[in-house]
């Protein structure tokens, strides 16, 4: 008895034969479409202009102090002790920002530590207790994250031509950080901006693992969450952030 898969594939082959359009397999020819090139020194400006055109906020900062001030200015005045969530890269590479925020009477929230699960537990070493502990931590984190007013992340790449942030899973947990809080702030290393989508696809490719496996999730974020479902009127923040702020700072570590 043939499986559904075999049946469907057999029907596909028969259909292509019937239509006289079945061909021996050959690779698709390359696309030589017009690729816009943007000069390296213009990438940050272009990124900002594009992001602003879709109602995002963008600025360039010279120091961590400036970034800290900017973040502080985004804190709501009337929210008691607001929750600000940060990813681990921000904590590790911008300690001064963390310090500055701490002085502002906010409570800081981080994703559950990854090292306990990731490094200690090799394949097969996942004991039920460790799993349930990880699940518990995740639940706690999610609950708190729903209350967060600001989520601060880094970005793995950015696309100048569209004003797009590119976030990968694996190294960092920022899928929910960039989604649940009303305001998403991204600290973008200027060296991570590429010109266009096709540059990104070429650039990110070799960074995938040896077997060309992309990360479980690669997320493109271009401006705030929006909908036009009510009378074609654009409204922000329907599910994700109401505002997206990108702060571009100069490369401290070369893009990997």
């Amino acid at each position, binding site marked *: 008895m043939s499986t*559904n898969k075999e*049946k*469907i*594939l057999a*029907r*596909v*082959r*028969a*259909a*292509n*034969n*019937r*239509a*006289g359009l079945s*061909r021996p397999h050959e690779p*698709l020819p390359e*696309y030589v*479409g*017009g690729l816009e090139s943007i000069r390296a020194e213009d990438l940050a400006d272009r990124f900002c202009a594009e992001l602003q055109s*879709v109602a995002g906020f963008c600025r360039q900062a010279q120091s961590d102090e400036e970034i800290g001030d900017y973040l502080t200015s985004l804190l709501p005045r009337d929210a008691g002790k607001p929750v600000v969530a940060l990813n681990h890269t921000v904590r590790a590479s911008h300690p001064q920002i963390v310090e500055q925020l701490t002085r502002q009477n906010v409570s800081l929230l981080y994703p*559950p530590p*990854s090292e306990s*699960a*990731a490094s200690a*537990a090799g394949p097969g070493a996942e004991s039920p207790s*460790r*799993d349930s502990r990880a699940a518990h931590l995740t639940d706690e984190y999610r609950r708190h994250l729903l209350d967060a007013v600001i989520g601060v992340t880094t970005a793995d790449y950015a696309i100048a*031509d*569209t004003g797009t942030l590119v976030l990968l*899973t*694996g190294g960092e947990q920022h*899928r*929910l950080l960039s*989604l649940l809080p009303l305001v998403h702030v991204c600290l973008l290393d200027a060296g991570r901006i590429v010109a266009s*989508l*096709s540059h990104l*696809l070429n650039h990110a490719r070799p960074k995938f693992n040896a077997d*060309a*496996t*992309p990360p*479980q*999730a690669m*997320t*493109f974020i*271009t401006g*705030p*969450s*929006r*909908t*036009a*479902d*009510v*009378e*074609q*009127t654009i*409204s922000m*923040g*329907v*599910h*994700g952030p109401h505002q997206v702020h990108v702060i571009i700072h100069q490369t401290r570590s070369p893009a990997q």
Partner: protein
Amino acid sequence: MPHGSTNDRSPQASFADGVSVALANAQLQRALSNATTKHKESRDASLSVLGPEWERMRERAREIKEHTLAHLDHYLEEFAANVERRGGSVFWANDAAEANRYITSLAQSRGVRLAVKGKSMMTEEIELNSALASAEVEAVETDLGEYIVQLAGERPSHITAPAIHKSRGEIASLFTDKLQVSCADDTEQITAIARRVLRERFARAGMGITGVNFAVAETGTIVLVENEGNIRMATTLPRVHVALMSIEKVIPRLEDLNVFLQVLPRAASGQKITSYVSFLTGTKRAPHEEGPEELHVVILDNGRTEILGNAHLRESLNCIRCGACLNACPVYQKIGGHAYGWIYPGPIGAILTPQLIGRERAADLPFASTLCGACRDVCPVKIDIPGMLLQLRHEIKEPASMVEPYAVPDAYAARAPAPQSSDPARRQDSIHPRGFPSAGSGRGLGNRAEKLMFRIWAMTVKRASRYRLAARLARLAQKLPGGKDGSRNSMWPLSRWTATRDMKTLPARSFREQWAASGGRLHPRAASQRPQVDNAHSQALLAGKNVDK
């Protein structure tokens, strides 16, 4: 063989009735005009920046789709193998029933009581929500437009703007009624309420269900395009992610997205890129990672292989569901989505619906077009919709035994479409049971009369003498009482045509008669009476001179 199920939700008795209802609905007319105008403006603006590059992108998008379809078996196997290699499960479903059975039993076995859904035409097509409901699994739509439509107990009326037919006031009172909140007639407040209500659902749901925009064969990656963020929620928060795709969603390589991610948002909404694009590959690699623990990809045929085998209609499978043809269509602009009777409205619906649920059940749709070609012009993958409308008209009108090859390969002629059923029970099954007499059965009286008329017309215009005689008779006929200029209503059966079209009044004398009477110089004073024309060519024309080079 019908593939979708259209058991109950047909909103009106016939296509003609649906059209009348839509035309009489002033609110709908305002909404459609507003939405389609806005769409055109933003689309034009986004394309004007691109210049000729847009045409190259469309051509490339079409090339990729055609290549993929020609090797569909290869790419489907590659895609499925890569999903499985990265920890996902793949279920191959021949039809809607199999897909629904798989997903409902998956939900039951995982103890899922609540599923959150991203916008997906595929789940509409197989009516997954009602299948889940009968297994006591609540499925909540989370795209704002879909949520509104679900609360109202309706169905989407546009592929990318499902609640296009609803006014803000209607939505506000819908929320007030159904959600027991007080909601003002204010877009921001509507959005805020939806955010709050749906967040709670996202947090509780055990399963997230989405469609698939593109399935990348070389990596097993699922690509999802959206603006709201609800799909990101549905694919990050619940423990299980189910993604449904029909077989034609596959594309060969990641880099092919370079074209599709540019043409799709531009055609759909005039955006350069949507707010969010998610590329999801397999399941999470480490326990601490965010995202679902299980990924189930359901690959559906549901009638696609039949379309693939029809050399004239297979390019319907190129469609990437952008909705641009709806916005561009003068018919859609007036009648909206619900009149089309099933889930795919507009020009693309007029070709997909008859193919997916049976030509005899949607026989009116291919005729509901002026063949103006606007849909083809805006299509980001250059689908020849008018050509396929003609093909479907041909297939619907001709009984199977009479379908001529129609410049079709022999292989196709052998599998001409099923004969149009004249069995009343079967006709009752149509989504438009009392359709226009012009469509439907190829053997009906209306059809024979139409054929006869065209035969007489052909005989008339082939000979100048017959044409002159017919024109003279027609001019005489319009002098008859009741047939005069001003009262355009012809007698039955011609009145069926003139009810919605004005008959042109014929002048007292034909051009040929006037020409002959003037001895080759019509209205000799015409040139002098006209305003000054400074163009020698035009003057020569007005003077009746031969200016052919």
